[in-house]
């Protein structure tokens, strides 16, 4: 029994496809305040008319002057511009630009993405949201990245918070929160079209059109699709794991009155990922979301959001899996006295999950409806105006597997100098069990389970963080975040009774700690040259608790680099030419071992006329092929050098 895949091999191979639920609190809460600086240059803004200036969206929704540098958490922001100029062609490729994430491509359609370690194809400690809609699946508490492809051109920014976000967002924000935020329909007016192709990203195209009724709603509709070719087998040869996807949708934004804003969005997609090679999965889904925000008075607001999300996956071997999520969420913020700002909210979510089981591969029961109810409250107290603030908050959540969970946090932000903030935080967060953790049965023969249902409890973390964030001058922002995370009850695969050691059940047999540091900086070297990048150090010390006989020896849940480094350069040359590059260096992964590597992406773009852009991007240029992650299943793959060309009309 060399290496038990405690995760359901076919499922993992099948990797990816749901979108769902959540707490949509982003619009009004903390991380949304930390907008990327430098995005608005004086010369660019001065060219705008007064009317156009009034149409520029300012993200700082907290109605007080909020210093960028004062956010008391480890947040990094990737702007739409950063994504475009990196030549990124998918969400995970864009996420690489946040150096507080571990991102590794596994095969053509699968990715391992985590924060502060525990990275895996089935990484389960991140909360990921697109426009307030949670997209991790209750199937395994991870994200099917192969169906998460909102058009990159419509993305306003991605906020990546490493460290627990449980106090605001609730379960699964154990090691981090990713907020993918798309542009308002007001900002995507007129025609946008792109198309192109290359060696790996073989063909792609998107058409988007935005229109607006004067002083009424603004709308955009889009359709897009792509096809990607296969990665390489480690033994040589083609892995036949090509991936294609088509998607369409719309978004409407409407200022119904001076105080009311309404947003409606919907998307539908149909994808054919093929992680195993030679037998593509059918992955379809759609979602619709409505959000109403009302400004009650200066500093006070109410937001109500509801969404429906449907995902469905046919593994083409008799096993199918479908999920319908219904989520309602409301939150209210208001000032309390002169020095306090309170945000509180309630949410309810129903997840209707159904599988068509195979005789030897099953979720029992095949149909389960999961409910999640939660409340949160947060109070930000200004202890010394402009200098010292204390934020107390907690989420109270009820789930069907473990009952009530409390996830509190305390944050202190101290600004000894203007634009310098030292912050500290202590938070507790939990990862509640998924369907895979509790309900999965894998059998050798009918009635002889190898993996059986278990009574897995929540995994817990107590995180202590200390950070510094500063705007050293108009051109340079920098931050350092350090953390010490104390984990308990991490999932293990416990062998059954002798002589055969089956059935294996999941237990909470690992505890230990991780610590590390994340450095990040953005530097506008000149008006035409911008640099951003970061370095992350991560150390783990995990061990089995007494009584645990984890079949994987406490190692199966993660495979993380100790060091990683990235620098992105964006240069505007005369003659409307852009030369951009991203260099990333990733330390070796210990077990299974993947050698460390350095890779380089380069993008060249030229605008012969204002509305037309021609560009060519090279990805992973330093090696013919390289491995980034070795999963327990499917077979390991190598990622090949790629080049694609693109024509953009806007």
């Amino acid at each position, binding site marked *: 029994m060399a290496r038990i895949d405690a995760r359901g091999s076919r499922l993992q191979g099948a990797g990816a496809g749901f979108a769902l639920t959540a707490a949509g609190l982003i619009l009004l809460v903390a991380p949304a305040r930390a*907008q990327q*600086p*430098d*995005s*608005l240059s*004086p010369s660019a*803004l*001065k060219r*705008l008319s*007064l*009317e156009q*200036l*009034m*149409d*520029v*969206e*300012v*993200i*700082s*929704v907290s*109605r*007080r*002057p*909020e*210093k*960028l*540098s004062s956010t008391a958490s480890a947040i990094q922001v990737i702007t739409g511009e950063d994504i475009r100029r990196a030549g990124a062609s998918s969400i995970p490729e864009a996420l690489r630009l946040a150096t507080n994430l571990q991102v590794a491509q596994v095969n053509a359609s699968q990715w391992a993405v985590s924060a502060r370690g525990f990275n895996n194809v089935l990484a389960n400690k991140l909360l990921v949201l697109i426009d307030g809609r949670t997209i991790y699946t209750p199937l395994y508490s991870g994200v099917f990245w192969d169906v998460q492809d909102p058009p990159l051109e419509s993305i306003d920014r991605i906020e990546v918070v490493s460290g627990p976000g449980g106090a605001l967002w609730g379960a699964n924000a154990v090691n981090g929160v990713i907020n993918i935020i798309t542009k308002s329909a007001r900002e995507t007016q007129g025609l946008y079209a792109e198309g192109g192709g290359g060696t790996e990203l073989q063909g792609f195209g998107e058409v988007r059109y935005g229109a607006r009724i004067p002083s009424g709603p603004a709308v955009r509709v889009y359709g897009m699709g792509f096809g990607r070719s296969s990665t390489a087998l480690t033994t040589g040869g083609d892995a036949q794991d090509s991936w294609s996807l088509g998607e369409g949708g719309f978004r409407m934004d409407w*200022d119904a009155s*001076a*105080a009311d*804003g309404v947003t409606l969005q919907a998307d539908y997609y149909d994808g054919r990922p093929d992680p195993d090679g030679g037998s593509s999965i059918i992955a379809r889904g759609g979602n619709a979301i409505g959000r109403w925000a009302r*400004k009650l008075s*200066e500093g006070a607001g109410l937001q109500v959001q509801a969404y429906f999300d449907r995902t469905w996956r046919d593994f083409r071997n008799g096993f199918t899996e479908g999920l319908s999520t219904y989520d309602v969420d409301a939150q209210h913020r208001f000032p309390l006295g002169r020095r306090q700002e309170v945000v509180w909210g309630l949410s309810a979510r129903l997840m209707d999950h159904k599988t068509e089981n195979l005789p030897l591969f099953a979720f029992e029961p095949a149909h389960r409806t999961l409910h999640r109810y939660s409340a949160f409250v947060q109070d930000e107290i200004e202890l010394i105006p*402009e200098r010292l603030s204390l934020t107390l908050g907690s989420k109270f959540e009820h789930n069907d597997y473990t009952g009530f969970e409390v996830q509190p946090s305390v944050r202190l932000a101290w600004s000894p100098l*203007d*634009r310098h903030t030292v912050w500290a935080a202590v938070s507790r967060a939990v990862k509640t069990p998924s369907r895979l953790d509790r309900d999965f049965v894998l059998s050798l023969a009918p009635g002889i389970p190898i993996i059986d249902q278990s009574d897995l409890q929540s995994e817990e973390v107590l995180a202590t963080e200390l950070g510094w964030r500063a*705007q*050293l*001058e*108009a*051109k*340079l*922002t*920098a931050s350092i975040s350090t953390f010490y995370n104390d984990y308990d009850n991490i999932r293990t695969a416990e062998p059954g009774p002798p002589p055969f050691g089956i059935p294996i059940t999941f237990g909470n047999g690992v505890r230990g700690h991780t610590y590390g540091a994340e*450095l990040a*900086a953005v*530097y506008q070297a000149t008006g035409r040259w911008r640099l951003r*990048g970061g*370095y992350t150090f991560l150390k783990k010390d995990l061990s089995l608790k007494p009584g645990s006989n984890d079949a994987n020896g406490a190692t199966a849940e993660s495979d993380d680099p*100790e*060091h990683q*480094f990235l*620098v992105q350069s964006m240069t505007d040359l005369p003659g409307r030419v852009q030369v951009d590059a991203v260099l990333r*260096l990733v*330390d*070796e992964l210990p077990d299974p071992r993947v050698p*460390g590597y*350095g890779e380089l992406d380069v993008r060249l773009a030229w605008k012969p006329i204002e509305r037309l852009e021609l560009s060519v991007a090279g990805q992973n240029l330093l090696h013919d092929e390289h491995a980034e992650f070795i999963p327990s299943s499917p077979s390991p793959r190598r990622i090949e050098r790629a080049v694609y060309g693109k024509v953009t009309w806007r």
Partner: protein
Amino acid sequence: MRDLLLHVVMWVAVSTTPSSSFAQGTATPEYQLKAVFLFNFAQFVDWPSSTFPAPDSPLAICILGQDPFGAYLDETVRGEAINGRPLAVRRYQRPEEATGCQILFISRKETDHLPEALDSLEGHSILTVSDADRFTSLGGMIRFVTEHNRIRLHINLGAAKAANLTISSKLLRPAQIVSKGGD
């Protein structure tokens, strides 16, 4: 991974070296926008020529109290001139010191002292601007109002006229006209 570590050390050394303008900072996008609005106001408002000591005296954009713009406002007006007048940015802590300004932005932090500040500016041709609540109802001239994450302008035309300022229709058109006592 020795190479990697070397890169990292170099990068950290380069990226965290403080520069000369250490004390200066940047504004949030909200205040970057507001800085550019202030620059626009300079173009769309006419001051009586008597307000300037000389034909080439600078047009002064001033900030009273806490400065949310950092270096951004300075960058915005650098090298710009309006009707032959260069633009200058000045910062004051007390309203009495600001009487030589053409545009005066009053920080929201000064909300408590607004009535006194506006009183002491009376009789001067100064375009008063703020994002404080009730600014225009207290007699201020232009208030930045954030609605749906966008910046709207409320203009108290009566107050501007009383200070002998002429506001161009280009500025009035996209703004909401309010009166003292209203908001």
